[in-house]
């Protein structure tokens, strides 16, 4: 097989980008990481993602794949021989897809409102966020990972958001661990894996980034 050319267009603090980094790490795929400037977007990004002009974008042998969960599924299908993310049974696959979609619909949106909103809107976001994490705790049950004994699709979808928890907690003035100790325990367990710890960013650095964004957007 000819050597694959794999490039990831990304932004260091993006949890969506971290999903792809984690997926590539799990499969042991070598790739070139290309940090993008989202204020002055480069020609390559605009060419590879003309519709959304966003990261992450995976460029594999010159062909782009966009949207983080679509990229993760693509990686799973192309590099089939190692660490499958999705189970082989269609019903189990549907469950994994459902919960990854749940993370997209709930965790990101509520999380974003925690650091962009104030007052009642922020309180509502905090509640929605915690309620959603509790539903995820229920789904996790007694399993070490959502994927069972090994990291799977839902783990890849969710665990990068852990890096933003410190920012949510500090800005929202609440403790996620107090409400969802099981979920935090799960995140700690994931971080013990080298693929996870090397794909995820430092929460304190992410917090500084969020503070910078808030200043920039005039949210105080």
């Amino acid at each position, binding site marked *: 097989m000819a050597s694959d050319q794999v490039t990831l267009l990304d932004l260091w603090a993006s949890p969506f980008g971290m999903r792809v980094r984690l997926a590539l790490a799990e499969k042991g795929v070598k790739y070139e990481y290309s940090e993008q400037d989202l204020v002055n977007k480069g020609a390559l990004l605009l060419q590879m993602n*003309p*519709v959304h002009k966003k990261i992450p974008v995976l460029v*594999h042998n010159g*062909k782009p*794949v*966009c*949207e983080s969960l*679509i*990229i993760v*599924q*693509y990686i799973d*299908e*192309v590099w089939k021989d190692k660490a499958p993310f999705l189970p082989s049974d*269609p*019903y189990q*696959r*549907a469950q994994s*897809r*459902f919960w990854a*979609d*749940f993370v997209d619909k709930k965790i990101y949106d509520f999380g974003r409102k925690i650091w962009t909103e104030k007052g009642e809107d922020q309180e509502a976001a905090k509640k929605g966020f915690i309620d959603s994490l509790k*539903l995820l705790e229920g789904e996790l049950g007694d399993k070490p990972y959502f994927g069972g004994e090994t990291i799977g699709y839902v783990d890849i979808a969710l665990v990068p958001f852990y890096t933003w928890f410190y920012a949510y907690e500090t800005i929202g003035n609440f403790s996620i661990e107090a409400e969802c100790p099981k979920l935090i325990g799960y995140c700690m367990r994931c971080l013990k894996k080298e693929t996870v710890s090397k794909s995820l960013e430092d929460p304190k650095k992410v917090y500084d980034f969020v503070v910078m964004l808030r200043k920039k957007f005039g949210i105080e």
Partner: protein
Amino acid sequence: MKYSMAEEIKVFRSWSSRFALRIIWALKLKGLEFDTVYEDLTNKSPLLLQYNQIHKKVPVLVHNGKVICESLVILEYIDETWKQNPLLPEDPHQQANARFWAKFGDDKVLQSIWGGVFLKEGKEQEEGVAASMENLKYLEEEIRGKKFFGGETIGLADIALGWLAHYLDIFEEIVGVKLIDHEKFPSLAAWKQEFANAPIIRENWPDRDKLVTKYVAMREANLGKGTPK
């Protein structure tokens, strides 16, 4: 006593839901027999609420007792379980492309047309129209030269975008705004015709007059509780 278990497929839908319609299309395109449970979404059955505790919505697919929710998730399940008339291609990059356009349809096209145009008026609607046109341009480029988004046959993206081939005309008529114009979007307009008249699809559109009545009421209710102009 030995017996063979027949496939038991049940779809929970409402008569008008464009999301549930995707499931009806997919099952019929695969030649599958199934039971339909019609839900009144103003008075949801205990069974629906039990099956879809998280979102409490239609569609829900129940296959031999296994419950699957979320229309795009259900479509992938159907395609993986019944291999005839595949909705997704084999090639991973083409699969990613199909998923991309299905997601673009829901995240951007549907949002801009429904939320930005249909449920709005005045200046807000003008902005919604502009945003919708931008989104439709991308669809136009993608469909150009192809019969369906899936190529020669109906695929995942066609099913996800299929509401454009019936519901959009109704929305356009109610608000008096033409979005998919033959001149501006010739390829997309051609796809609409092709899809709307395709076997199976053409036999399963909900009643047009009933839809008009329903959506007129929804628009009025939404505008009524809006902020003053």
